[in-house]
């Protein structure tokens, strides 16, 4: 099953593979013919008077018949030799063109397969659910998309063609020797199982040893890394000498592991070369035996010597193929694990209505599949288009969950959500998301310029709109301090922005277009109170109707909303306006009163301090 799944990743490449395989096979066949030219040449020369003693030509040369007849059409020795040389040259040019196309198709197969798989993985991972991304380590995903893709496609293309190459070489090599002398084939082939087995053992064993190398290396890297991140501690305690000693030990262990592994490598390749060379001697010995008895000639021995290389050398790589197969199997498992996860768009609505901004939650409950605790319990509320709504509540009360449900990042189990009276389940996810401008708690900036980041969802927006959005988000001043202004690259590989700056870029991003629904998931708390007010003021003045949902900790922000939703442990505690809620006992009132209370407490303390001092 695993093997089938591994090979299924090569789907769509069969024809290309076949072309590569065919080119490889033909190439090896032409290659196996090359020594026969020398064989014919030597036969021709030996047949001339005064070159060799006695009647020495034994056996046929198994070149294609048309070549043989072309060679022998003339009686002139020099003419024959010219013909041999010219046809050998033609064959070789043909062979190297084949070789060229073989390498090309092989490279293309490998790279194209990797390209396709990379793109497929990227697209698929992008489409996996919000929850998947919440629970997955990026480093691991990258590992799967890079190293694992390379080992898998490398095996499916290059290594599989190597198998074809190996088989073709063995077959044609053995076939040509067989035609010259049967004993030679059997003797040569006899050694193959031995080489194959030791090669397999070697590659499996060396793999384990290399794991030990990686282990010692990572230990050494830890020491370096801890030293670098702790330079202050190292210097402040004057422990530089100790650090050098510590590093020297790990450095040595790593070097020793390398040397140890290399000893095995050296013995293996030494032994393999010995066997390979010894094989030639065996062929010569057999040759001597048969030539002495007049059953073979010098030309045959020379050709066999050239051909026997086709049998021994390639086998040494067999272990590598088996080893790579094992690795590819593991790598493809890891890739398939991702590909088997369903895309979030498998379950999608179909409608793409124009959205006004009326939102209704009706008995909505939500929990993650693998837990029992409900994050939202029977939540009911109604927001009318154009309203500004604040959601407050403690950490874990379910504020962000409401937003994620509205964007259909999560699937709700019970109840239903309606947007302009249409069930959210019927609306296309991507459509809904384009209609909602949301600023997440921890927004992500792409490694592009500030300008491109603001324009990211609306590449063709007019420049003015971008500048306007930046102005409304109170970004202008910050951008002016950047050396390259709007062209400054931000994100992972660029200038690092402060949390507040990031938030404001994200805010500008959603302000570029006029979205019917705007959501700020605690996004305004990272900016100071003044900017917060300015941004909300600017939003109000936008001359189109939009629903705004603000999740906040700031009571002052919540106060100005048309509607305040107070959440408590996944349930709605109360819904109302500041007027009503500040008079009703509950969370909102408590938070509201803390502001005043603290101020008083401080004054008392200072007074006490004053009297203590005096």
């Amino acid at each position: 099953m695993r093997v089938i799944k591994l090979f299924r990743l090569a789907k769509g490449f069969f024809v290309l593979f076949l072309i590569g395989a065919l080119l490889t096979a033909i190439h090896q066949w032409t290659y196996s013919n090359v020594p026969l030219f020398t064989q014919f040449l030597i036969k021709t020369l030996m047949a001339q008077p005064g070159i060799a003693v006695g009647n020495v030509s034994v056996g046929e040369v198994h070149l294609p018949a048309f070549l043989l007849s072309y060679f022998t059409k003339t009686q002139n020795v020099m003419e024959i030799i010219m013909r041999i040389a010219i046809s050998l040259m033609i064959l070789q040019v043909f062979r190297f063109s084949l070789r060229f196309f073989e390498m090309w198709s092989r490279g293309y197969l490998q790279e194209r397969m990797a390209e396709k798989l990379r793109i497929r993985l990227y697209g698929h991972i992008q489409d996996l659910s919000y929850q998947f991304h919440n629970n997955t380590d990026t480093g691991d995903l990258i590992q799967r998309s890079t190293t694992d893709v390379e080992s898998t496609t490398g095996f499916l293309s290059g290594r599989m063609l190597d198998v074809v190459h190996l088989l073709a070489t063995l077959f044609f090599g053995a076939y040509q020797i067989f035609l010259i002398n049967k004993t030679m084939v059997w003797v040569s082939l006899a050694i193959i199982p031995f080489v194959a087995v030791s090669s397999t053992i070697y590659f499996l064993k060396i793999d384990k040893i290399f794991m030990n190398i990686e282990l010692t290396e990572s230990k050494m890297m830890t020491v370096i890394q801890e030293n670098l991140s702790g330079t202050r501690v190292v210097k402040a305690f004057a422990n530089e000498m100790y650090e050098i000693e510590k590093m020297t030990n790990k450095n040595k262990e790593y070097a020793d592991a390398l040397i140890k592994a290399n000893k095995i490598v050296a013995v293996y390749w030494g032994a393999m070369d010995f066997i390979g060379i010894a094989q030639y001697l065996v062929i010569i010995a057999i040759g001597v035996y048969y030539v002495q008895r007049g059953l073979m000639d010098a030309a045959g021995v020379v050709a066999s010597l050239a051909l026997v290389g086709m049998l021994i050398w390639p086998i040494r790589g067999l272990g590598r193929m088996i080893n790579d197969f094992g690795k590819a199997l593991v790598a493809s498992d890891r890739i398939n694990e991702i590909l088997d996860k369903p895309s979030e768009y498998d379950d999608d609505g179909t409608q793409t209505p124009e959205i006004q901004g009326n939102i209704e939650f009706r008995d909505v409950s939500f929990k993650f599949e693998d837990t029992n605790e409900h994050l939202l319990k029977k939540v009911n509320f109604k927001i009318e288009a154009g309203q500004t709504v604040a959601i407050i509540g403690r950490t874990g009360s379910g504020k962000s969950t409401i937003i994620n449900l509205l964007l259909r990042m999560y699937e709700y189990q019970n109840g239903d959500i309606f947007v302009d009276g249409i069930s959210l389940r019927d609306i296309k996810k991507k459509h809904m998301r384009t209609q909602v401008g949301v600023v997440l708690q921890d927004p992500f900036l792409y490694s592009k310029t500030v300008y491109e980041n603001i324009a990211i969802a609306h590449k063709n927006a007019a420049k003015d709109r971008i500048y306007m959005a930046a102005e409304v988000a109170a970004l202008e001043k910050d951008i002016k301090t950047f050396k390259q202004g709007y062209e400054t690259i931000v994100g992972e590989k660029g200038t690092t922005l402060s949390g507040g700056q990031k938030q404001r870029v994200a805010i500008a991003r959603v302000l570029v277009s006029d979205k019917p629904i705007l959501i700020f998931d605690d996004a305004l708390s990272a900016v100071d109170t003044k900017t917060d007010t300015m941004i909300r003021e600017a939003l109000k003045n936008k001359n189109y109707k939009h629903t705004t949902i603000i999740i906040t900790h700031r009571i002052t922000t919540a106060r100005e909303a048309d509607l305040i939703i107070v959440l408590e442990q996944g349930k709605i505690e109360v819904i109302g306006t500041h007027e009503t809620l500040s008079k009703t006992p509950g969370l909102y009132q408590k938070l509201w009163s803390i502001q005043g209370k603290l101020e008083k407490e401080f004054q008392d303390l200072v007074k006490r301090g004053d009297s203590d001092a005096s």
Partner: protein
Amino acid sequence: MHHEEDQDILYKVQLGTWKKIITIVFKSKKRIMLLILFSGFIALLDSAFPLINRYAIDTFFIGGDYSSWPYFVVVNILVACGFGFGIWGFIYQAGIIEAEVSYELRRQAFKNLQKLSHTYFDKTPQGWIMARMTSDARKLSLIISWGIIDFVWATFSMVIILVILYLTFFKLALIITVALPIMLFVAFVFRKLILKQHRIARRYNSQLTAQYNEGFLGAKTTKSLSIEDNNYFEFSETAYQLKRYSVRAVISSALFSSIILVIAYFAVATTIVRGSVFVLETIVTIGTLQMFIAYTINFFEPVMALSTIVSDLQNAQASAERIVSLIETKSDLVDTKEVEEKYGSLFDDHKENWEPLVGDIEFRDVTFYYKENENILTNFNLKVKAGQSVALVGHTGSGKTTIVNLLSRFYEPKSGAILIDGKEYRDRSIHWLHSKLGYVLQSPHLFSTTVMENIRYGRLNATDDEVIDAAKIVGVDDFVKNMDLGYQTFVGEGGNLLSVGQKQLISFSRAVLANPRILILDEATSSIDSESEVIIQKATDMLLNDRTSFIVAHRLSTIVNSDLIVMLEMGEIVEMGSHEELLAKKGAYYELYRNQFIKEKAKEYEDNL
């Protein structure tokens, strides 16, 4: 960012860099001699084969004379053994050289890193240094050790073959002599092209990884913005370019080796024709002709090997330069010759000449900047008596950290002086100061070893009992007691098996063990639960007891309890005095205290709500 890109520049050979590398490689010179011997030996045996075959053909198969057969077998077995031995030997030696060279590169780089000042670490990303110490060291040592083999083997093979051919029959040897420069020319032209294409492909490859990273890290934002299609398109484009240039490199390689082979076989065909004439004229034997053919076919291999070495070296140039820069960077913060003579150096201190440290500290007209024209401190003055605790308060960028960095001599004043016990601190060695200084970090830095060893880091020669005593003083003992392995508990990488509070306490006990006269405490801004807060507070009191201490303070309780509060703004002291004095002023400190107070209290409320 520029650190990543510089690998793509085509480097000119720089002699200084390679000189340094060669001195490092020469530390293994005995092995290198052996390696050269082994490579030469293999080249010799390689070239012997056609000779042996010629003998077999002429004597046995054509001549029919088998009298020397037993000797022939013996020689052949010896050659096979020699071959096995030679291959074993050069792989063995090259492996050791590779390990030794990379060991030495890392050793020297690491040793030099210990001498460098913070200025260096501030502007050099940790990842960059890590990459030099690992992948560059690996790459360079690999290319050097195996490059030697290839180079020696290739040149030896070519020379030996040419010598044999000329000695045998110079008229036929001329053919290969003509082919050789053509092959070399083609090789170097193509190598350059291939190298360039590989570089472009590699650049797209790292761009691809960056896009993966971004795509996965930003997946949630991407979804919320619904820009999947756009990202997918951009990614596909990069993946396509990567494929395009990888395939191009493959095509160039394929074309290259095919052309070289065609040239080689053209020489073979010429040899066949010319050689046969000489055979027919019985000037040379069939065996000799066969030998010439074999040598001509074999000749392209050393040519390929030589061209590989050249492009490998070009590739390694960038690695070499970066490592050498790591080894040779000079610290911008060093002791003067006189000071070093008296107090010794980092690696050889003269402890007998060290004065004790009392702890009076004075900043006298100190001016400091990281970047010219952007002064952090200007003519800063501050006097602290031995044993006092000083809390530095103020906003980010007010100069608090700079003051403690200067005091720790992680940096030095650009003008003015810092006096310790009345004497300019540059008149004593850095090592002297650091041996008497304690530094407790904002975010504690633990090593991935046991609790015991982490505390012992404060004073390496402390006994287990002394370590445990120090642990008891700040309350580490209280939680270590409950661990199964006690002080032998492994703290995990960066101490991540412990809580933040526990890590801080361990870092405190480290300082207690060191028992420094001057203590610097960079307080954490991160909040911890109120229970830990109380423990940390108690530990802080113990820590500050009886020594001169500078605290970059964030917690109210620490500030309130210190002897002297220095309120900073833009590198200047705006208010200074005790807590009570400053509160009475109702100035900047009063405001700061008020805000901090409300913040801490509000959090307390929220926790208890």
